[in-house]
């Protein structure tokens, strides 16, 4: 029996611009995960550790990262590690990551397939690899495996290794190295280890083609990632046994708070975050606030969520709320600060006049609000007045979106609260 760990799409050095400077934490987590996967291979007495492409996010990653990755492999000299250049890190020549000093002086257990070739694994087993040399191609890289397999004994155990998208109708790009769905049986392979997509995908071609997905999730939507494949092969012609081994370091969770059911949302969010709290340092958490609320409620909930997000490795607050005054608050505001009530009505009017906002929901009208006797009822702002109003400050009405108006109301009411106190 031949046992191996099949992984792919480590994307070492990946970019997480949406998290700003906190992206570094996520990159560091990938090295931790690699160490864990290698340890798992050792624990399962794997004969080989395959990386089916995209070990690196890009050929131009930093040397220190390359060295750190090679050091991970060096720490397991008993484990044969086979590395395949993928579309993110294709073998393109002297500038590619595979020609760095760390790889050129890699330990003996590390084998990089810079060109297509066959490696005898022992006991009649062969590893056939078809690396990528470019970022895009319409050629099926597994075709080369069929050529390589033709030169091997028919009864030999043959394991293929390549990288590309499975040619599933409407699910792949034509220039994304499309791999035939019967690539393994077509080439007479007992197992075809591939990589490209980031979610686990098996049971293709009679279970002989496996895409293990990325071992470390990189987005909130990758819910079938975070694994490597443990593959056991008994003999040529026998179906492989494949099992997913979770290895991810970080968990990516996305939660929501809806002011429509503020209490329930608060309770649910609090419970979930409490549940996640023990693993907060290994969790990327996003909380989305939605719905309409009073300024005070918004401030209060926002403050609460921000505090709750603080312990997490990466906490992201997405605010899609809308500030609004309740009838009582509005009446009070109108009675005590009639000009402010007029200004809020003007903001509603501005939001309506902003391009594309005609259908936007308007705040409760304030034009008919009760104003002091010495202040006549204001008329709604005309477009000319709006333009005259915005011109000196060079504010472009076309760039104002609902989020801006939400912030405007929040700022106004929040500042009012501050100056009133």
């Amino acid at each position: 029996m031949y046992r191996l760990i099949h992984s792919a799409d480590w994307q070492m050095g990946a970019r997480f611009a949406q998290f700003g400077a906190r992206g570094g934490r996520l990159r560091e987590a990938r090295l931790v995960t690699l160490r864990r996967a290698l340890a798992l291979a050792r624990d399962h007495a794997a004969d080989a550790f395959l990386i089916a492409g995209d070990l690196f996010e890009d050929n131009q990653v930093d040397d220190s990262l390359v060295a750190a990755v090679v050091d991970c492999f060096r720490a397991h000299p008993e484990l044969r590690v086979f590395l395949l250049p993928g579309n993110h890190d294709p073998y393109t020549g002297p500038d590619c990551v595979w020609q760095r000093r760390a790889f050129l002086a890699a330990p003996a257990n590390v084998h990089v397939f810079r060109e297509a070739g066959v490696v005898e694994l022992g006991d009649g087993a062969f590893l056939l690899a078809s690396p990528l040399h470019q970022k895009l191609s319409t050629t099926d890289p597994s075709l080369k495996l069929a050529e390589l397999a033709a030169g091997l004994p028919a009864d030999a155990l043959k394991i293929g290794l390549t990288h590309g998208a499975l040619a599933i109708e409407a699910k792949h790009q034509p220039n994304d190295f499309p791999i035939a769905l019967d690539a393994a049986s077509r080439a007479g392979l007992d197992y075809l280890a591939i990589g490209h997509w980031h979610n686990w995908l098996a049971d293709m071609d009679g279970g002989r083609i496996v895409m293990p997905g990325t071992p470390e999730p990189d987005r909130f939507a990758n819910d079938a990632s975070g694994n490597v494949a443990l593959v056991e092969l008994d003999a040529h012609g026998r179906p492989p046994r494949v099992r997913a081994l979770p290895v991810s370091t970080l968990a990516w969770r996305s939660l929501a708070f809806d002011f429509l059911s503020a209490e329930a949302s608060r309770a649910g969010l609090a419970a979930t975050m409490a549940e996640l709290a023990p693993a907060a340092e290994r969790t990327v958490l996003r909380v989305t606030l939605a719905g309409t609320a009073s300024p005070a409620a918004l401030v209060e909930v926002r403050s609460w969520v921000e505090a709750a997000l603080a312990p997490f490795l990466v906490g992201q607050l997405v605010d899609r709320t809308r500030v609004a005054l309740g009838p009582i608050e509005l009446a009070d505001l109108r009675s005590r600060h009639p000009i402010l009530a007029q200004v809020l009505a003007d903001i509603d009017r501005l939001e309506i006049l902003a391009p594309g906002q005609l259908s936007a929901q308007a705040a409760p009208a304030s034009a008919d609000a009760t104003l002091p006797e010495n202040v006549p009822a204001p008329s709604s702002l005309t477009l000319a007045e709006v333009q005259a109003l915005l011109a000196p400050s060079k504010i472009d009405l076309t760039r104002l979106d609902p989020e801006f108006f939400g912030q405007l109301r929040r700022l106004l009411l929040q500042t009012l609260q501050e100056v009133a106190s």
Partner: protein
Amino acid sequence: MILHAIELTGVGRFRETVRVGPFACGLNILAAPNEAGKTTTLRAAARALFDKHTTKGEELKSLQPAGTDLAPRIAVEFETGAGRYRIEKTFLQSPRSLFKVWQSGAWQPVAEADAADQRVQDLLHTSLPGRGATRPEHWGFLGFLWARQGEPAAWPGLDDAAVGQRIRARLARVELDPVIERLRGRLGEAAEALFTSTGQVRVGGALRQAEDDLAGIETALAALRQTRTDLETVAQRHRQAEADVAQREREHAERELAAVTLRDQASAAERLRGELTARQQALGAAQEKLGAVAADEATLTKRQAAVTATQAALAAAEVAAQAAEQRLAQLRTRLDELQAARPEYESRLHALRAELQRSQALLKLRQFAVMADALARQVGKAEAAAAEIAVLEAKRNQLPALTPPKLRKLEELAESERTLRARLQALGLTVELTPEREARVAVRDGGLPEPRWQALPAGEITRLHSPQALDLTIEGWGSIAIRSGALEARNAASELDEAGRMLREALQETGLASVDAAREALAARREIEALLKAAQSALGPYLGEHATIEALRAAAAGAARRSDSLVTTVQPTGEEQALGLTEIEAAEARLTEAVPAAEKALKDFDRQLDLLRTDERGAVKAGQEAAQAVGEQRAGLRTLETQIADLVARYPEGLAAAKTAAQLVFVQAEARVAATKADLPPDFEKLPERSKRAAAALQQLVDELRALRTQRDQAKGTLETLGGQGLYSRETELEERKAEAVLRRDAARTRGWCARLAHDLIEHRKQAATRAALAPLEQRLTAALSEITGDTTRQVFLDEALQIAGLGRTREELYAFESLSQGTKEQLLLCLRIAVAQELAADEPQLLILDDVLVNTDPVRQERILDVLTGLSSRLQILILTCHPDRYRGVGQAIALQPVAP
């Protein structure tokens, strides 16, 4: 604020200290003539109140007394709702500022320098310009309440946040919600922190910081991406170089193989070529050998044929030699015969020639004799002619030597004398003598040496003429001398004398007595000369070719001597002498023809002789040649025989056997050459050149390959260098920083825009409220103006900035403020200032200054204004500056400018 007093030192016309005040509450009138210093005093007070003590510039320098550098020192005592104060400032020279407070009945200094300035600024709600001296818009309320001389219609704007807004609020009676005002202020501050009032991003603000950060990141990213692009370019170049190197290497291998093959082929061909050359040389040698044998064979054959021919030729030559000898003998015989006959020809010729010479001598002799006779006769005739000539010449010599020209000269002289004489007579004296009796008169004329006697018949008139003088001696009577006194007559007489003298001399020279004699002599001479000429003509033919008769005589003598001499030489015989000249001449003619004939015959004979001699020489030569031919043939025969012997001796085995052997060798060599040629490849001659070309192409390819490898290696080095820089990782870091910066920028901009928009909306609503409150103020101003002008038909209208828009029945039909008369403008603004002062006075006492502003107001209206001002005097301090004290007599408190004792 109200004023209490002003002190000035070194200001304007006040070099010494003067004090103005104390001012009272209510109406104060500072009346003084023009240029007394009223306005200067108040302007100086404004500088002390509103300008920093360190301010410089024309506004401050204009305070200095004319022509001095004195430092203006000003002290102002004033009062606000907070207390009573004194500010003392010195400008320009050693500037200082001292602020004092009235406490416990005395002035207590509480601040100085900038602090003092700041205290006053805070108390009076004033502001400072960016640079230079303040202007009315910086003077707080006083900027509105001070109607300045010369500009009473000026009204500052109300945009200033502290003062203008307060006035506006007061005037419009809009009580702003303090919370909203704070809200507006807070929002304004928030917006100001990010944007300028014109909407520009504020330098140093958070938004600018974010934008700067972002720009820096973008720049770094651009550089990084450019590096990545460069890397891609280099990678592409490297791939191309790799492909090129591979392609060249393949080509190199192919060409190298081809070159080696070609070189081997060329070597083999060269070897075969050498072999072929050797075999061709062997073939040539065989061919040469065979040729030699064949040539020897042919030579032998030829020599044998030549022996035969030579033998025949020898025989013929011997026959020819014999024939030549025979002919020579014949010729010599003939020659001897002819040579023997020649003397006969010669002797005949000699005889003829002698005969001819004799005939010619005889003929010559006869000719000489004839010539001598002829000459002798000629001499005789010539001598006769010569004698005649001598006679004629002697006759001619006896005649005077007169020539026709001489004669013509004599005739001319005679004619001249006659002409002069006639002239003298025409000019001269005429004496008519008529004697009673016959008498004689001796006339002695001036020109005559002797007197001439002339008879005088009685009773007849005898006329006597004389040119000049006439001396008469009448017989019996005596002498009478008559003299002419005319000059012309004297000259004519003188010329006549001269002409007579010349004629006489000429005649004397010729030896003749008169001119007629001269004529006769000349005619005789001409006749003799004609005869002489005829004689000389007759002598010429006798002389012949001889010039003179002596020459003729000599020639005749010579001819006689030659004739005699020839006779002696020839000694003619009698017969010869008897011969006539004709006979001699006929004989000479005959001999003259015979001698050439004899000469010709001799020549012909000699020619025959020469021909014979030539034939003899030819025969000799032919004989010699024939003998030589015989010798040559004999020698050739011996040579041929020797050669034949040599050739035969060269081939002991026999010439035929030798030829057969040579033919065999030749055929074998020819076969070897053909075999070698068959082994050579086609175009083998071109193989070395092709091999060279192949080698050159290979070398060129090697060079290209080397260059391409260098390019590839350079690209590889660059790629390795760039690849190791972690460009993606650096870009990742920058992108993440950029995302943060973008968030910060967007957040700041949104925050700024929100604050600004909220602020502006509040302001917008405030202004709307203000506009709503304008109506009551307009009504108040309209009432005040009606009170001053008495006109109730016009209404005052204000604009949104609380500026006076104009006057009219309706807002739409108003007369704009700018179009109103100066007096009306002053009165309107006076009403507005009064309204402002009234409003502000609710908080604290206010000062209203009217500096000569009612000069354009008629007395009626001035009275009404004074009514109004008097009515306000309980609530305001009003200071009126005027140069018309009469108009304000009895009104308010009079103020004077008083010097202060030092």
